[in-house]
């Protein structure tokens, strides 16, 4: 689901919410579910053993973190995933990605050096 981005950005100190928001497995499952398209709360709750208020609470955390948007369709509220909001997480992985680029370049140099000897 994640892709890499080039920029490295520190998670903003006043916005820790994204990391905290995905720290719970139920919330990650909700996000996984919503990658397939927007869903009303009933449909989301049907995937879980927990109570409807508990599901709503998780949805609230995801909404507060900006990972979801909520839209009213008549009496129904539908939830939609905003994947762009995961960019601090992608940036973190991207840092490790750069680390390995750097080390593997060193391996190439190491092997070339051995060839010369």
């Amino acid at each position, binding site marked *: 689901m994640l892709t890499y981005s080039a920029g490295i950005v520190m998670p903003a100190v006043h916005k*820790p919410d994204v990391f905290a928001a995905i720290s719970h497995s139920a919330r990650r499952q909700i996000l996984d579910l919503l990658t397939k398209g927007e869903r009303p709360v009933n449909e989301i709750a049907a995937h879980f053993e927990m109570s409807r208020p508990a599901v709503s609470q998780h949805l609230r955390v995801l909404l507060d973190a900006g990972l979801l948007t909520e839209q009213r369709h008549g009496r129904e509220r539908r939830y939609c995933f905003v994947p762009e909001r995961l960019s601090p997480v992608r940036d*973190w*992985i991207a840092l490790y990605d750069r680390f390995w680029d750097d080390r593997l370049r060193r391996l190439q140099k190491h092997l070339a050096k051995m060839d010369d000897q």
Partner: protein
Amino acid sequence: MSNTIRKEILFPQPPERVWRGIANSAALADWMFPNDFEPRVGHQFTFRVPPNPAVGFEGLTVRCEVRECEAPKRLAFSWAVAGPVADTQVSFQLEPEGEGTRMIFEHSGFDLSQPGGNLALKGAEYGWAKMLGQLGAVVAK
């Protein structure tokens, strides 16, 4: 929600040569970090990432265990630091390609759910920011 870094690299050297560059303590010290690696499954070793006072980096120990070691084809070891990198796996797969070698590198098992959900926001925030900073210092070296 975990993630994998995957890279493919072509080397002009044959797999036997590339193998000596990855499954050897002295070679790993040259392009990775000082270590006590031994090429046998089950061997526990560490990479000691030296401190870099210039950027305020305190140094770091990566705990590893050899999981697969099949010369000159595949080397895999665990890679443990902390938080989301507490239980990750690194693997090098070597395939002959012409006179040279195709290496498929993977680093998998990043647990983006760490630190755990019960931690206070501040704790989680600090953990992430610190690890990010430390890794940044390593890359900058």
